[in-house]
């Protein structure tokens, strides 16, 4: 079991979302992706979409306007 870190700082929408989606293809159930993003909209999109796709999603604010999202790949 391992976790994966994606650096999405300064990327335009929807690149952070695509990064997560691409990574999800590579990893096994229960593994965790942590993505860091400063894009307010991408943060909202990723958290609601990943939830809908059946993954667990956790969020924390690491600085003003910078968030880390943890996506725990679900069995869905």
């Amino acid at each position: 079991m391992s976790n994966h870190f994606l650096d999405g700082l300064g990327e335009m929408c929807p690149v952070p979302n695509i990064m997560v989606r691409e990574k999800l293809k590579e990893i096994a159930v229960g593994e965790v992706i942590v993505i860091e993003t400063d894009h307010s909209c991408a943060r909202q999109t990723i958290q609601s979409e990943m939830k809908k796709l059946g993954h667990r999603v956790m969020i924390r604010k690491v600085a003003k306007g910078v968030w880390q999202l943890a996506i725990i790949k679900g069995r869905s």
Partner: protein
Amino acid sequence: MRAAVVFLCIAAIAVVLSLVGPGLYAHWLFGITFGWILHRAGFCFVAAVRDPVLTGSTALARAVIVSIAIATFGFSIITIYTGETGTVAPLGWNTVLGGLVFGTGMVIAGGCVSGTLMRMGDGFVMQWLAFAGLLAGSLIGTRAGCLWSADLFGPTTRVFLPHHLGWSGALALQYLALIGLWLLALRWENRCFAQVPGRSEPAEISNTEEPEEADLDWLDAGWVEIGAAETEAPDAAGSSLGGFLRRARAGVKSSLKGLLTDSVTPAVGGVLLGIAATAYFATVGRPWGITTELTYWASGVWRLLGQHPEEWPCFLASSRGIPSDLRIFTHPGTALNLGTICGAFFASFVADQWRLRLIKNWRLGVAALAGGTMMGYGSRLSMGCNIGALFSGTSSLSLHGWVYLVSLVAGGTVGVYLARILLFNPAVKTTTSRKQAGLS
């Protein structure tokens, strides 16, 4: 504390504006409202067009449909009672071409015009560049419009649906189209999300017992699980009327809190925008529009550079003309657009989320400038952007809004394919990805 400071700022500027020109404060306050809602809901017309093609998500598309449905209702009441029609712009090939160019540009620029204003307020450098492109494109579009002969695009005509179908016919058709599109969007998302390749295969499942419990110890302080609150409150469940009311009350409460402190869902944003846009139309007598004013701004800048756009024949011919002194600071549109930028800034600041959001590489800067220019040019052709032509146009029951929507989607699809090759795929490939990264 922050909220109080921001409230005082907004009020103080409103007072100053009321001394500068009649009614300017109202435009300012509505601008603040629009910017605030756009920011909190992450309300993005680009995502509404792009995501169905790119990821299959239609959350934003459905939110846009909801906002138009509400504004249609509000605008119709205003028109019936006051006789004041909304945005019914000339429809012709210019509408089609404008939508195509605009749709492609907005995907590349990472935001349409309202999204650009909102993200400028939120500190995105990329959108400031897109804005520069927007001004340039508006100016080029205006100049080009002057050079064309009037019949280049063939005749244009204003089609106000109730004139042709009657009010009941027009409204029935409008709501049929909106409900149909909404259902189609929902089905599309369900279909796409059911076949996402990232989903696990059955074989993997049997290997992993309760994976959720495993190895989350490294997730140290400060993490909040999304949607945990709903599952922890069983009394909110149930299909009875009481359960429904409890859920509705909880939803309103969390939306109000999100509106003040963090974020609301796109659907909530759509409802609020529909209401706010109706209130704006009722208050100032015309629907929300952004780009006409941006053209004046661009002309003002061009004049500062020693040029004379006010002598261009199309400016002389247009009904509003260009004020010879170009005192754009007394224009209602200026108060409105600056209000939108500031509204997003204040929203971001109150939530303690504002930062200068630098672009990652030159590629994004070029994309912003090019996409912005395309949007500026396109909006001159179609006489409005996603707000003026799409949102206000369709809500005013004008056929040009619907024609614009169709070509916008076509242009947006082209934009997605271009952006995938030029922007998205290279970015995803070169991004940092560290295994077992130490997080702090």
